[in-house]
């Protein structure tokens, strides 16, 4: 199926859409900047000294647990076991504070994802501005250089720096290539060379383009070509007519205008299966349809005869020159990795301090979790509650 089935989306190439895309890129960059700051603050908090934590635990803990009948060591042991059950690894600091952490790698996630996304948008835009894409038609045995004049149609961005000048050859066309049990249809063998040095050469079909550096060569289609002899009293001339696929996915008709001293004649030729061509004579006036087949001559007007010399095929190749593809792939991966880290490894920290007051042991707990993981504190409370049976929050006591 050719890209002719795509409906051109003109809106996406207008300047106002470009402005919206630029705004999106700017927003993502601003988000990335803000997330990097937040992650840096979290990293600094991890490194901050025990004295600050001690003060915070004494004055403003998130959770206060009563541990009646337990010594400080026993209470701490039970708390550490509850934290282990919640997936946190505990270490004990010099000030008697137990510190439990999990998913520190997750701090990287959001900045990585947002910076990669901003970079992806920027690289994609830059790639589009410097990209070239066009169609090159090659007969079997034909060679063309990658220059503007070789293309039947080409478009490039304003920043495009020029074609590579490498040489593209179609060595042959395999009529119906079968690879791994799948029919690939008519398939050209394409060679890319620099002077006499062959850079790459293989069959080219969908999902197996020919790659070299920033160049990618795809098989757009294999289409009919007809070498036609036009014989008249004045002599004979040979023309080559190519029939690429039209918008309806069928070979497009070709118009041939013939002029002689006596008259002008317009012909429309449409290739049919089985080495036949339908010839419509004078399509704008009196119509007459004839069939040209095999090597039999066809008289289209008095003294004017057509003869098919050769029915064949040509390869239409889509040549894309875009340096940004590999970088875009890499950035896709980084966006996905960053997103996974951010969503599925939310960083968690818990600090616990035991204190004994009038022979009663209590634990003071400080919980830090990212905004992605707001339910962590509730889950931790439930886990501690199941261990100790009573949790007294700051400002709230539960018997």
């Amino acid at each position: 199926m050719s890209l002719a089935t795509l409906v051109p989306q003109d809106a996406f190439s207008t300047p106002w859409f470009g402005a919206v895309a630029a705004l999106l890129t700017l927003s993502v960059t601003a988000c990335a900047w803000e997330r990097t700051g937040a992650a840096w603050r979290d990293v600094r908090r991890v490194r901050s000294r025990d004295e600050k934590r001690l003060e915070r635990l004494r004055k403003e803990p998130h959770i206060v647990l009563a541990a009646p009948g337990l010594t400080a060591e026993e209470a701490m042991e039970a708390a550490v076991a509850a934290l282990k059950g919640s997936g946190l690894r505990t270490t004990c600091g010099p000030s008697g504070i137990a510190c439990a952490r999990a998913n520190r790698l997750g701090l990287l996630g959001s900045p990585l994802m947002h910076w990669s996304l901003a970079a992806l948008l920027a690289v994609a835009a830059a790639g589009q501005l410097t990209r070239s894409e066009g169609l090159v038609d090659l007969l079997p045995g034909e060679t063309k250089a990658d220059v503007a004049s070789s293309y039947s149609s080409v478009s490039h961005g304003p920043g495009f720096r020029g074609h590579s000048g490498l040489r593209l050859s179609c060595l042959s066309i395999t009529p119906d290539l079968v690879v791994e049990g799948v029919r690939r249809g008519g398939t050209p063998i394409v060679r890319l060379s620099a002077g006499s040095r062959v850079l790459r050469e293989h069959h080219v079909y969908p999902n197996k383009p020919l790659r070299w550096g920033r160049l990618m060569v795809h098989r757009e289609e294999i289409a009919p070509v007809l070498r036609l002899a036009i014989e008249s009293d004045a002599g004979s001339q040979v023309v080559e007519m190519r029939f690429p696929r039209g918008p309806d996915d069928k070979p497009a008709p070709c118009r041939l205008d013939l002029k002689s001293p006596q008259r002008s004649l317009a012909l429309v030729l449409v290739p049919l299966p089985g080495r036949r061509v339908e010839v419509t004579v004078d399509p704008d006036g009196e119509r007459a349809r004839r069939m040209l087949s095999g090597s039999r001559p066809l008289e289209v007007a008095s003294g004017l005869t057509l003869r098919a010399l050769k029915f064949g095929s040509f390869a239409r190749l889509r040549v894309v020159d875009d340096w940004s593809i590999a970088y875009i792939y890499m950035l896709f991966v980084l966006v996905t990795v960053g997103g996974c880290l951010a969503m599925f490894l939310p960083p968690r920290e818990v600090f616990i301090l035991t204190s004994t007051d009038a022979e009663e042991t209590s634990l003071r707990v400080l919980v830090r979790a990212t905004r992605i993981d707001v339910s962590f504190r509730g889950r931790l409370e439930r886990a501690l509650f199941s261990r100790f049976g009573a949790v007294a929050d700051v400002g709230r006591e539960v018997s």
Partner: protein
Amino acid sequence: MTLEMVMAWSAVTAYAVTAILFVIGVVFVKASLTRCAIVLTIVGAAPHAGAIIARWVGVGHGPYLGFHEVASLLAFLSVLAFIGLVAKYRGFALAGPAVMPVAFLMLGLAMLVSKDAEELTVTLTSYWLVIHVIFANLAYGAYLASFALGAAYLLQRRGSVGRFSRIIERLPEEDIVDTLAFRFVAAGFILEGAMIASGAIWANEAWGRYWAWDPMETWSLIAWLVYAAYLHLRLTMGWKGERAAWLAVAALPVIVFSLLGVPVAFRSIHGAYLSR
């Protein structure tokens, strides 16, 4: 009738019966009927799986070409996800009246359209097809789950009194339902991003361009941005609880349209593979 058709129609019948059982069981608060419905859902999923496998073996490719295969697989994955949720939290059987009728209709529709096997064309013969389709199915499944959880949360908030209160009480706590809904949106967001990325890479290999604003591509991106908005509203603006639940519910039609509506409404290179 082939074995595949027998199994598929058995699944359609089972899903129809479970849909009825769930509706009666939940509306009239008959716990025994709800339990029967859960068992029958599992029983019905077995021949459905068999039908999908039989088709896979018969046509030589996975269930991702043509409406029949795509709808059948989606119905199966929805039922599977529902069974998984109910196994973890029994209270989610409350979602049965929503999930099973939809699964029944999707599979029933799949059985009524043309079941001719689509040939793997040269463009589709690539391992990227499998990667792209897996991520697509997982993403849409995750979004569907977030929709169901959002709806469950809203029911919880409104159903604390009245005839449904006994059923709603069996749901997990509100903050767990809210967190689960968020996590499924997050998972769906990552998976859909991977789907878009793998689709772009594959498009470049097959057609020579990674993005061409094809309607399917455009609407997948729109859906991704809608869920990005959900995540930002939740994480940055603090939209939790009821507001987040409403967002999760309202976002689903975008995804449904991007998967099922776009191939019908627009002429698209993807639509050729999905709407035949």
